[in-house]
Each structure stands twice: as C-alpha cells, then as structure tokens.
C-alpha cells in the first residue's frame, strides 16, 4: 500500500477497488489523527512573545513573555522570568563598631559572584582610606570611575574625605579580569565605579585600610550576591 512521504500515512493504491474506499479513508484518517496527537497545537501560544517549554515526556506548557527588563532564569526546576536582573544581596559579615585597627579585613570569602562593601560612617580623623583585595602586594587591582582611572600599587581604590568620615557602597566582581561587567558602566561612564583585579582568580578577602593609626568609629559590612 502506498504511503505519504513524510508521515507514512496509508493511501489507496491506484489499482485499489472503489468498494474499499471507505476503509481506505478510515485508515488514512486514523493515521493522520495519530500523528496530529503528537503535535503542538498553535492554540498553545496566545500572545506575542510566548514561549513553550516541556513539563515532562511529551507534555508542554506556555510561558508568557516576561515584563520589560526581566531575564529568563530557573526556579524550582522550571523556567521563569525574573525581575530586572536584580541582585539578591546577602549580608556576609559586618564589622560592628570599629574602634581600633588600621586595617579591617573580611577573609575567607567565597561562594559569591559579586561583592558589595558598604561603609557607614567609618571615621579616622585626618585619614585617607583604601580598599585592598586579596591582601594584594602590588599591581593586581584597579578601579575605574568618572574621568579618572588608576591602578595604585597595592590598593584597588583609595578614598578621601575632607571630614575624615567615610560612607560608600561599592560593588565588586569576585572574579574579574578587566572586562566590562553587567550593570557596570564603561570607564568613561557617569556615576559608575568599577573595582576589580587584573589577574584571574576569585576575590577571597576585602580590606578597608585607614592611613590613621586606627579607626575610631563607624561600621563596614560585606554583602554577596550571585
């Protein structure tokens, strides 16, 4: 018996008898019906931007397009649109009130793709401040921001306050090799500061350093995000 080229549906032979026509049509219809049951109906999608994903063997569902700026990610083993690339920052550790020390270091940092160092009212009279990554001994860190770029010998960044009191919020990539990062501006961008390391390898420690003999107040905290 002849069959169709793609799905091998049975068709009557040219020499077939007319009396078998009903059966031939039934066979063809049943074959088509079987094939169509394996297809995704066009009615599955209803809206511009709809996606279809599998929910199991031979089962599908529709996923409507996400809101503007959202990204496709996975939650609970299924794809979902997630909010605007927002970071879910977790407090890794906080210093408590700084009343001593010229260097405060968060060490043994791991497991995060981004770090955020937040200083609230850190104070050391007449001081300048530095941020150092991985206890860098020279030339492996950089900061870019505003119209100035630099790579201080040891410090990822140096900050100064006319009052001696320091507040900032700076984000780092934990493994950064001087390439543009998501959410960060170019080196000439406005209001953007990038801090990172030229060399490969994760950031495992972050230090806040004062040029004074000791911190005399304020807090510094380290947050992480993936």
């Amino acid at each position, binding site marked *: 018996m002849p069959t169709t080229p793609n799905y091998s549906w049975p068709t009557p032979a040219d020499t077939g008898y007319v009396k078998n026509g009903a059966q031939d049509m039934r066979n063809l219809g049943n074959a088509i019906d079987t094939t169509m049951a394996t297809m995704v109906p066009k009615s599955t999608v209803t809206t511009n931007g709809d996606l279809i994903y599998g929910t199991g063997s031979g089962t599908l569902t529709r996923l409507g397009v996400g809101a503007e700026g959202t990204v496709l990610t996975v939650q609970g083993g299924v794809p979902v649109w997630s909010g605007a690339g927002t970071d879910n920052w977790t407090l*890794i*550790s906080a*210093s408590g009130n700084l009343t*001593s*020390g*010229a*260097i*405060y*270091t*968060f*060490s*043994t*940092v791991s497991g995060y793709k981004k770090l955020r160092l937040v200083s609230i009212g850190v104070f050391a009279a007449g001081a*300048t401040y*530095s941020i150092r990554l991985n206890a860098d*001994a020279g030339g492996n860190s950089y*900061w870019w921001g505003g119209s*100035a*770029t*630099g*790579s*201080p*010998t*040891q*410090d990822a960044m*140096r900050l*100064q306050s006319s009052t001696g009191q320091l507040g900032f919020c700076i984000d780092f990539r934990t493994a950064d090799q001087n390439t543009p990062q998501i959410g960060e501006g170019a080196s000439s961008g406005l209001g953007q500061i990038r801090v990172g390391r030229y060399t490969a390898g994760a950031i495992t420690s972050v230090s806040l*350093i004062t*040029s004074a*003999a*000791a911190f005399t107040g304020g807090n510094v905290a*380290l947050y992480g995000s993936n």
Partner: protein
Amino acid sequence: MAKTDRPLHIEKNVVTGEVTERPLNDEEYVAWLAAQEPSTDASA
C-alpha cells in the same frame, strides 16, 4: 616603631566569625607609612 607598637590589622573570618588582631606585618606597615604622604595622583 617596635613591631608590637604598630597599628593593628583586624581580620574577621567570615566563615567562622573568628576575629583576630595582630600588628601590621612589614609589608602592610610600609604601605601604611606610604599612605601618610599626601596624594598627588587623581587615582591615588
């Protein structure tokens, strides 16, 4: 300045929460002294 009189380096292990204090080591102390000098570089 005697090593024991140097400023302190306070380190917090974020995994264990342990906080340790020690005087700056030689490398840190040299860098700390250098930071006392006025900066003339926009990046420093």
